[in-house]
């Protein structure tokens, strides 16, 4: 029983950064904006979170700075793609590269320093319940509130939403900023709780996994939750099997989280009509109001 509880807490830690970042990106993409810079926003969140906690001595200050750093990156992305109409794919990729470089620059003096860890109760830190609450909140917002209806409308057909008098660019800015805040928080989770230290590139591709989860989960928050936890569970179980000395090749076990998650999500998104209904039709397309 003890072992089971320990494993559950390890899995929660593994899933939470993915869940946070993927939830944010779900809202961004629901508004029709494809931000491939999740990895860049996460790593900026990680360095800002560490710096905030280290300089103030309070890990909760780190949580705030992580969110702000993610939002700052997102604002830059929004300015380039929504105001200056730059290509979203290219800008997103550039945002990741910028984030990796900039975070290394900012974090240089923090390398080799232990960080301050968020307090936790029975292995569960405040961000785990928060991430569950966010799943419920995002779900409710997108499908049960007027604001969510507008966000989805902007993502499905920005021209129609504009014709109805909604401020397409404004809504998209907000969605992008929300995505940045959540990615930044996911990154901060890494440097404040998961592994309380700063090392360059410590997000190690989690932003990309989060991006993939969003698409495979058909932009549905509950499925994002399922995907993140499935991914976390399989990765931890593969370590458990290895530690138990089960003779399965470790290379295969390492690929299992990816294979398993993709398979499961492909199976549950077998309903084509549902997938089509939930795909933001204007994803990645620039909006020019007067056209």
């Amino acid at each position: 029983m003890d072992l089971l509880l320990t494993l559950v807490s390890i899995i929660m830690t593994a899933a939470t950064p993915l869940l946070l970042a993927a939830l944010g990106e779900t809202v961004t993409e629901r508004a029709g904006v494809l931000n491939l810079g999740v990895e860049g926003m996460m790593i900026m969140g990680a360095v800002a979170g560490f710096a905030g906690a280290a300089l103030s001595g309070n890990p909760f200050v780190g949580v705030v700075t992580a969110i702000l750093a993610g939002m700052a990156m997102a604002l830059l992305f929004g300015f380039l793609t929504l105001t200056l109409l730059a290509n979203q794919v290219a800008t997103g990729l550039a945002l990741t590269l910028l984030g990796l470089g900039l975070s290394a620059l900012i974090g240089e003096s923090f390398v080799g320093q232990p960080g301050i860890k968020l307090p936790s109760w029975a292995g569960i830190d405040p961000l785990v319940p928060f991430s569950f609450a966010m799943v419920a909140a995002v779900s409710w917002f997108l499908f049960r509130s007027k604001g969510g209806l507008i966000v989805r409308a902007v993502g499905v057909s920005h021209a129609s939403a504009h014709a109805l008098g909604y401020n397409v660019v404004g809504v998209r800015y907000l969605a992008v900023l929300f995505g940045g805040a959540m990615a930044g928080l996911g990154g901060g989770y890494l440097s404040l709780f998961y592994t309380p230290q700063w090392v360059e590139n410590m997000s190690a591709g989690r932003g990309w996994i989060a991006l993939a989860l969003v698409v495979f989960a058909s932009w549905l928050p509950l499925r994002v939750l399922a995907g993140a936890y499935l991914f976390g569970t399989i990765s931890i179980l593969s370590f458990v099997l290895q530690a138990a000395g089960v003779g399965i090749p470790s290379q295969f076990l390492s690929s299992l989280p990816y294979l398993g998650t993709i398979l499961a999500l492909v199976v549950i998104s077998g309903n084509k009509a549902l997938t089509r209904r939930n795909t933001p039709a204007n994803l990645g397309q620039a909006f020019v109001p007067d056209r």
Partner: protein
Amino acid sequence: MKKFLMTVAAAAMMLGAAGAANAADVKACWVYVGPIGDYGWSYQHHQGLEAVKKELGDKVETAYAENVTEADSEKTFERFAREGCNIIFATSFGYMDPVLKVAAKFPDVKFEHATGYKTADNVTTYNAKFHEGRYVIGQIAAKMSKTGVAGYIVSFPIPEVVAGINSFMLGAQSVNPDFKVKIVWVNTWFDPAKEADAAKVLLSQGADITVQHTDSAAPLQQAEAAGALGFGQASDQIKFAPKAQLTAIVDNWAPYYVRRVNDVLNGTWKSQQSWDGMAEGTVSMAAYTNMPEDVAKMAAETAEAIKTGKLTPFGGKITKQDGSVVDAVDDGMILGMNWYVKGIDDQLPQ
């Protein structure tokens, strides 16, 4: 700030290169697999670069590329060769074939490949006998563990790593013949969160000491959080685990890098297979902490015996996992090691 200045300096140099001849006599370049801020493997190599700069001053110009994946390495070597690097240090096992390929194209450029085993007229391999340090920590682990089980987090099943596990086990068995090790392959050199996950799983499965052959301090940090013990890797990581770090195997590439760049300066560089260890100072142990005095004394004596050559981790007859006996393990066998010693339950991934 330093990085920013270096970027500016690099840009200025690129602009200036067209007009003015280069002042430095030799250009030495490094390619790292991880970020120099990993505080582990790549960080230690970069400390070597800094030592070269300090030691040789104006005579040498340096450059480096970090986070270079195996797949991207060929491009990087080629770019460095074209940019006038006289000697290129390739600091990851996985760079082996790209190094040889690019070296064949640029016969005048010297290449140095860390931890590899293929050489050419202009390709040297260099390595450090990290397994010497692992023998020492194996002894400490066997003395300090209450459960008699260590959790060992490893990256890839390459000879250097396998020899490390074996040497650790031989050291542990010299103290406790029944000592057990649980092994988890994470299939990455650098992913702190994944390394931490592996450590947490191992600690939940009965191990009370963590050992890692990956690049970050994350596993040690988990040991500290769980009230267990562990070892630092590549750098002295005591700051991350003041109550958990027993010692650390510290890589010190500085003497080797200074010597080799000097060889290029003097025109005495030759292709070779270099393999320094504790005796040369390339491998050293951090302070022995969090252990009783007698254990620290034993560890120090073992390290001293290895340094003076009185003890070699793979000395004497070695029984393999399958029960067959090797009469004498030579250097070649260690550098190409693909089998476990007796007493390891894991199955080696092939």
